[in-house]
């Protein structure tokens, strides 16, 4: 079983002294991180952040949880086994656990609700203020509705619509078949629709 030796790779990274090269070939100041980890960070930070943002109430909380995910990944990078999971799947697994911990701590404090002033970062490029307000309200309803779903439903929805994973990647992350993913997504969407409609009518 091959394990990543992060320390060794960090010391043998082929980058000029004090500079590192991004995936796009752009030169920027070196962060001093292990070479592999830096590439993963560049490539998958957005995915992790969006997955987390879909599941937590505020951008600030999403930033905290995302920081926590990468800190945990950095601490345990030497235990990463590329034969078991791709880096993205591994990072998303850490993210799922971190989100669960975060939600558990919030549940104890009873502050899971997404309020209207917490969603502006999810709305952009709308032509008028009225449309922005309407869209914010709709997103608020959707996010609050998703909080009322079962954890498995929340997870599959955030992997698809937050992290933007394809069905095969969701199947790998959850350890189920592609067909099962399609069925679960279908059901989760149906339940989300019911929850949102019930709340709107009441």
């Amino acid at each position: 079983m091959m394990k990543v030796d992060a320390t060794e790779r960090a010391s043998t990274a082929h980058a000029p002294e004090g500079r590192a090269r991004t995936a796009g070939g752009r030169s920027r100041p070196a962060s001093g991180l292990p070479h592999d980890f830096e590439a993963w960070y560049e490539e998958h930070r957005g995915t992790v952040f969006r997955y987390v943002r879909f599941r937590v109430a505020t951008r600030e909380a999403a930033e905290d949880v995302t920081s926590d995910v990468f800190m945990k990944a950095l601490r345990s990078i030497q235990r990463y086994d590329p034969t078991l999971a791709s880096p993205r799947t591994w990072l998303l697994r850490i993210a799922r656990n971190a989100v669960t911990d975060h939600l558990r701590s919030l549940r104890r404090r009873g502050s899971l609700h997404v309020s209207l002033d917490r969603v502006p970062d999810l709305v952009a490029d709308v032509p008028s203020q009225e449309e922005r307000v309407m869209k914010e309200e709709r997103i608020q309803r959707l996010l609050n509705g998703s909080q009322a779903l079962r954890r498995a439903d929340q997870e599959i929805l955030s992997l698809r619509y937050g992290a933007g994973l394809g069905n095969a990647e969701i199947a790998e992350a959850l350890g189920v078949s592609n067909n099962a993913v399609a069925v679960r997504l279908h059901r989760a969407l149906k339940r989300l629709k019911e929850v949102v409609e019930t709340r709107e009518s009441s």
Partner: protein
Amino acid sequence: MNENTNLDPLGDLPPELAELDRELANLQIAERPSFAPELEAELGRAWQTRARWRGDGHVVRGAVAASLTALLLVGVAVPPARASLVTRIQQLLEVFQEPAPVAGGEFAPAGAQGPGLASIMAGEGGAEDGSSRRRGEAVRETRSAGEPLTEFPAFRVPESTYPTLVDLESDRILMRRYYPPELQRQGVGGTVGLLLWVDSTGAVDNVKMARSSGVSALDRAALQAAPSLRFHPTTRSGHSVGELGRVRPGLRAS
């Protein structure tokens, strides 16, 4: 910014679920621009600290462990050192059994209890000189029974005031002047958190937004109005000085 427009299609969705699928797929999730570099720098620092600790830590830990082991071996193997060690341990045990000082800040009469830490640190002869006097008496007797303990000098705390708005009502009017009329008509309002420097004359300088209202036009209005706010400046011991202040002006339709 993310729009998941390239997601795998979900086959056989009824129209209402297909609409919800499209709506969720078009949800835009924006990262704060400075978040990525901030986190990367934080991770870099964490990694460097860890690498340093892992690099040098085992040498330091090894040296400390070796020194302690050597001291223990010497203490146990050499008879005079062993006797001294036993005596010191007994003295320390007595210290921990000593009752607390009596009320009024005065110690109890000498000899009534075990020795104090000060006497042990002074290294007096004690029982070894054949005297029946307990350790610590010599130190305690240098102060007569009625003499009060020396008090610590009191620290002078400078008298301070903090920046306050000169005229709240005129500041409200000022804010309303900058409140965009179309937002007023639509009833869109909010509160903006501002961080500003109030100089020694009470004038405002260097305004920054600490918390957005969520409506960029409101944020802009508050930032434009803030330099015209007037404050009573901070004073320290009667002198006016500059100070960082926070205000949260609210812009709401009446």
